[in-house]
């Protein structure tokens, strides 16, 4: 049986190579009649040759160009976001996003060293949700503000152009991945504000580095892209489904969830588990020891189910030489 985690790793590697390195093979921004491909995932501007746009980048660019010129350019990105979001929900975060992959790598390294992790307390979890929405609101406010003529933010349009991208940790990570180490901690000294933004970016990056291994998927909990995609989790075609009656409430799903979703453990009545935190990585499905209790659903059809055999395969304690393969 194919392990979900292994499949996911494969998908992540493929997308990482596509998004980061396809540019080196000569592919440029994928466009059709001046409409470029916009993905609801990091496809960072700071890579050398990006093949697609990050939705957050498009949003900022569109809004700050003002309603006359810019807002019409947002139509395609928003339509693409709705389509992608409706199909896959936040699965983009755990299966495609290159930054998510980089985070998974650091978690894997920690696992190999057999070091434990920390969980956020319930309060801090709420704070993280708040932070990601503050990011969204700040992006909207600054970018729209720049777009309004005679508004005070207009003055700072060159210092605050695409404000989130200026502080996003991928600004340092992708130059690193591509070997351009000199470009990593550049400080913009054109004005005080842009210098402040540069130092803020370094601060965010240091925070990222400190937390990446020890709090699982910390950046995903703060990412504004995740906040927006999370809205689609409720409606997405790909979903996490649960048969509450079969759940023994053993709590394994809750413990193995990298973003500490509690609904998957608590919910006993609703069939669809739609938490805006859930990145649909389906670690819970493979770790669930109860047959058919958790399912990966496409619409209402289950495409993968939890079973004891899958559990044994995915558990960190490997069971070698099980006398005869168990049918569960």
């Amino acid at each position, binding site marked *: 049986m194919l392990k979900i985690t292994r499949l996911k790793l494969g998908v992540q590697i493929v997308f990482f190579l596509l998004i980061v390195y396809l540019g080196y093979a000569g592919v440029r921004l994928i466009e059709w009649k001046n409409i470029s491909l916009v993905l609801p995932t990091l496809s960072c501007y700071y890579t050398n040759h990006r093949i697609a746009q990050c939705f957050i980048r498009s949003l900022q660019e569109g809004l700050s160009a003002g309603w006359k010129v810019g807002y019409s350019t947002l139509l395609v990105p928003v339509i693409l976001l709705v389509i992608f979001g409706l199909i896959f929900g936040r699965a983009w975060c755990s299966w495609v996003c290159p930054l998510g992959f980089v985070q998974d790598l650091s978690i894997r390294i920690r*696992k190999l060293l*057999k*070091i*434990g*992790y920390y969980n956020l307390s*319930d309060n801090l979890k709420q704070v993280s949700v708040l932070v990601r929405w503050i990011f969204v609101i700040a992006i909207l406010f600054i970018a729209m503000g720049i777009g309004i003529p005679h508004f005070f933010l207009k003055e700072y349009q060159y210092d605050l152009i695409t404000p989130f991208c200026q502080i996003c940790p991928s600004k340092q990570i992708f130059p690193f991945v591509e070997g351009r180490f000199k470009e990593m901690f550049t400080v913009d000294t054109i004005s005080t504000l842009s210098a402040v933004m540069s130092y803020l970016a370094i601060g965010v990056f240091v925070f990222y580095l400190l937390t990446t291994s020890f709090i699982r998927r910390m950046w995903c909990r703060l990412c504004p892209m995740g906040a927006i995609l999370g809205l689609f989790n409720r409606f997405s075609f790909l979903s996490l489904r649960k048969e*509450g*009656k*079969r*759940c*023994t*409430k*053993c*709590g*394994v799903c809750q*413990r*193995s969830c990298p973003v500490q979703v509690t609904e998957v453990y608590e919910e*006993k009545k609703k069939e669809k588990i739609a938490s805006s935190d859930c990145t649909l990585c389906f*670690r819970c499905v493979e*770790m669930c*020891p109860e047959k058919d209790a958790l399912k990966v659903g496409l619409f209402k059809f289950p495409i993968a189910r939890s079973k*004891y055999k899958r*559990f*044994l395969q995915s*558990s*960190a*304690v*490997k*069971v*070698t030489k*099980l*006398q*005869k393969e*168990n*049918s*569960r």
Partner: protein
Amino acid sequence: MKTNNDPKYLPTLDPAEKDELQKAFKAGVQKTVAENIEKMKQVPNRPKAMEYFDQVADFFGQREKEIREFKAQGGKVIGFACMLAPVELILAAGAIPVRIDSGFYTPSKIGDRIVPVEVCPVVRSMIGLAMANLYPYLEMCDVIISPNTCDGKTKVCEILTDAFPVWEMNVPRIKDTPQAKSYWLEQVKEIKGKIEKLTGRSITGKAMRTAIETTLKATAASRRLLDLRKGSPLISGRDAMLVDQMSYFDDLKRWTDKTNLLCDELERKAVDKSYVAAEDTPRILLTGSPMIWPDCWKIPNLIEESKPQGLIVADEFCSGDRIYYDPVGVDEGSAGDMLKAIAERYIMPCTCPCFTSEDGNQDRIDKLLTLVKDYKISGVIYHVIRGCHLYAMEYMRLKRLFEKEKIPIYYLDTEYSREDSGQMKTRIEAFLEMLATKTQTDDLY
């Protein structure tokens, strides 16, 4: 083996009386065991692999010798009074875990000298065993781990402190709050420290990993047997219950191998269609107070021997299918994570009625309903041994729910003694008759 000079509960018995009691006990137990096995052998097409479990079922056999030798070489034996004790940690420290729940009738009469007869017979029997030093597996224990679950278990281990060192574990009665989880984890950590001190071996991550692997394999084998009981009658319920219960004191690896062998044989039997009962035999689910080998075999014997016959296909006993059902789910391999996984495995999926919450013991109800569906149960027998208040008190809720779902459920309250056998027989027969007619009429329409 006394821990203090001034016993709180247990009186010192006259050595001559003790000797007499021991002899009588051994003879009595061997007689009951032989009788029960003889009855189980009457089942047509009984799997040959059961022979091994028949041997283990005799308490004074090979396994006792093995443990004695192990002890002579300086090994430690750790007894535990309830299935909430973390077996993995005992295994990881290289000690032998032995579950000391008692299913003996005669010692319960000795226990009557200290506690009133209203107290549950498991408790009275355990007291009797300790008082007269009857049961080899209890006698060999270096220490007893006692999770304070039900009222009986909570107090019996206080009484046992007169004879053994006892490590108590405080079980949170409301289990799924974060506080309860961290509290229980602290208890498990403490027990881990104590085990390390007793055995002189530190429980490393590697040792824990191996121990978890052992129990995961046991769980896989146990679940395999359960799966085989979902279909046509391949094994009698008593045999399956015996297999489950022999994990109380058998070597877990060997138990796993033998259970797998049994499953292999059952798979072959499924192909040959050699069944232990007619295919339309009413399928019974047992739930409630544990039925412990050998003296509590009265009810299962009656069910499977009565006319019309019933077939026990599943149970929800802490002495049965639940022992190795829930696995330790380790997400990451660090020592802390493994310990957390071990701790959570013991309380979180546990359906013991000693747990409570706002929505009641909903987990147990869901589990029972799932069992009824998966095992195509015709009727549920709710077994309560007198004095088991927690199970008795949960009955009414279950009865209402099951009646709403149109699942026949029948309450049986009994004792370890055989005095009520006749009455039990009549009651069980009446229930099974009802089920049998129901299946027949269901077939008609």
